[in-house]
């Protein structure tokens, strides 16, 4: 069977796996963005929170993904739960760090002017600081997404969703019928998902970056 024939014959399985792969990444990144940006906001004002959270997020990344997923099995079982949690925590570091960097990197005069004009801390955050830091925060989210799209393939080992099954099942029986096709189809699917997510973020960036930050002087 050629690669093309293989993809056509297994289209249902492949497309379902790809959709699940994209879905688990999307949910994980949404959770990580919510939590990570929140922690970043707390962290930009408090050195304690900042240092602790960044150190913790960095420490998580040093744990091999297979080990983390396996360790989670007693807590969240096989499948979606463990996959989702590990992907979420792996995504923290770039998001927290970019949120903190973005907020701390703002022109001090802008923030002082805002306070001096009578914007409350909350309003200043919502109307000035976050919009200005947003391009950097979004970059953090995008980097995290690219990172966990790859890691999501490992979820196959804990019976998780996604294209990992194709890849590793193929690899485990290399040499037999269609084994290379399965691995190839899974890998290619991951690449396609990565490209699609990147296009998505490109569009989001374009649509959500305040115009005043895009204009040429």
């Amino acid at each position, binding site marked *: 069977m050629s690669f093309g024939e293989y993809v056509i014959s297994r289209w249902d399985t492949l497309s379902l796996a790809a959709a699940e792969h994209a879905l688990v990444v999307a949910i994980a990144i949404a959770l990580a963005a919510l939590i990570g940006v929140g922690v970043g906001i707390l962290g930009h004002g408090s050195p304690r929170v900042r240092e602790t959270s960044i150190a913790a997020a960095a420490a998580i990344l040093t744990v091999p993904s297979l080990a983390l997923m396996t360790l989670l099995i007693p807590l969240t079982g096989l499948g979606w739960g463990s996959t989702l949690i590990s992907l979420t925590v792996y995504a923290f570091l770039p998001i927290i760090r970019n949120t903190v960097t973005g907020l701390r990197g703002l022109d001090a005069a802008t923030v*002082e*002017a*805002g306070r*001096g*004009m*009578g914007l409350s801390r909350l309003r200043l955050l919502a109307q000035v600081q976050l919009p*200005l830091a947003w391009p950097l925060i979004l970059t953090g989210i995008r980097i995290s997404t690219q990172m966990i799209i790859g890691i999501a393939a490992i979820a196959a080992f804990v019976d998780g969703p996604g294209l990992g099954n194709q890849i590793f099942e193929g690899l485990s029986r290399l040499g037999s019928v269609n084994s290379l096709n399965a691995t190839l189809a899974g890998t290619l699917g991951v690449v396609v998902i990565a490209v699609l997510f990147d296009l998505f973020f490109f569009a989001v960036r374009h649509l959500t970056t305040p115009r005043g930050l895009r204009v*040429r002087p």
Partner: protein
Amino acid sequence: MFDRDTDGVRIELRALTKHYPGQPAPAVDNITMDIPAGELVVFVGPSGCGKTTTMKMINRLVEPTSGEIRIGGKDVLSLDPDELRRHIGYAIQQVGLFPHLTVAQNIGLVPKLLGWPQAKIDARVEELLALVSLEPSTFRGRYPRQLSGGQQQRVGVARALAADPPVMLMDEPFGATDPITREHLQNEFVRLQKQLRKTIIFVTHDFEEAIKLGDRIAVLREGSHIAQYDTPAAILSDPADDYVAGFIGQDATLKRLALVRVSDVPIADPLPDAALPQVTGDASLREALDVMLAHGSDRCGTPSGVLTYAALCAAVGSRPEKEVSEGVMSGGEVR
């Protein structure tokens, strides 16, 4: 928010002190001062003497360690800080415009916080842009990054004026611009304040600027101690001590000449003389002297007659060694 009398609101500082934690000495040490309603008072002093700290205590960006502040009779420390700040104009050297908002949105922000209807905000933005000499139709929709430094400063001033606050705090607002733009902004600001008569505290380390803008000048030394607090003319003619004299520099008399306009001095001869070098009535006596020196003349023509060197001397309270003209004028009452 503040009780205004006809002139605006006055500001009273009483034993105001700020001691930053971990600093050996207070940055502001027990300053007591009255800023009359509708006057522009300049704080001038060397870098680090506590000017900014003193000013920021008034809008509570810095919380005083002790002391009292009253604006229009109201105890500032008992008010909600955010609410207070919406009624005090604030302009700083680095301007701090919001880069993601248009010029109109930057200016309209405080009025919006105060709940003005949009139509009123739009009209106010137009009015203010015109006031700071920026063509509204051109600049309304621009973003801060599309403005020159001088234009940003103007928008900064317009934004501080937006909700028509009775009090303005300005911390070296023209400090970051080139000398020509700065001079231009200063001139405009003098004209503006003539119309507005707001109570303004203006911080600078540039004594020339202080003379040019201030109704009164507070010369400060380390710890925001007041070395002298008086009108520019009084400080120039009678500096309190060597510190103040040092600040004025060697050319106090020339600086005093700069304070007086040609149209404010009596003239020797009420008949215009086209043969003489000419100055306008708006020119300062310093400029008139410059014209005389440049032409080797002891007199120059003004729109209303002839101005003599002797009249310049009289204006600063001195007499020429030798009478160079017959019609020496009695010292004109200046200021």
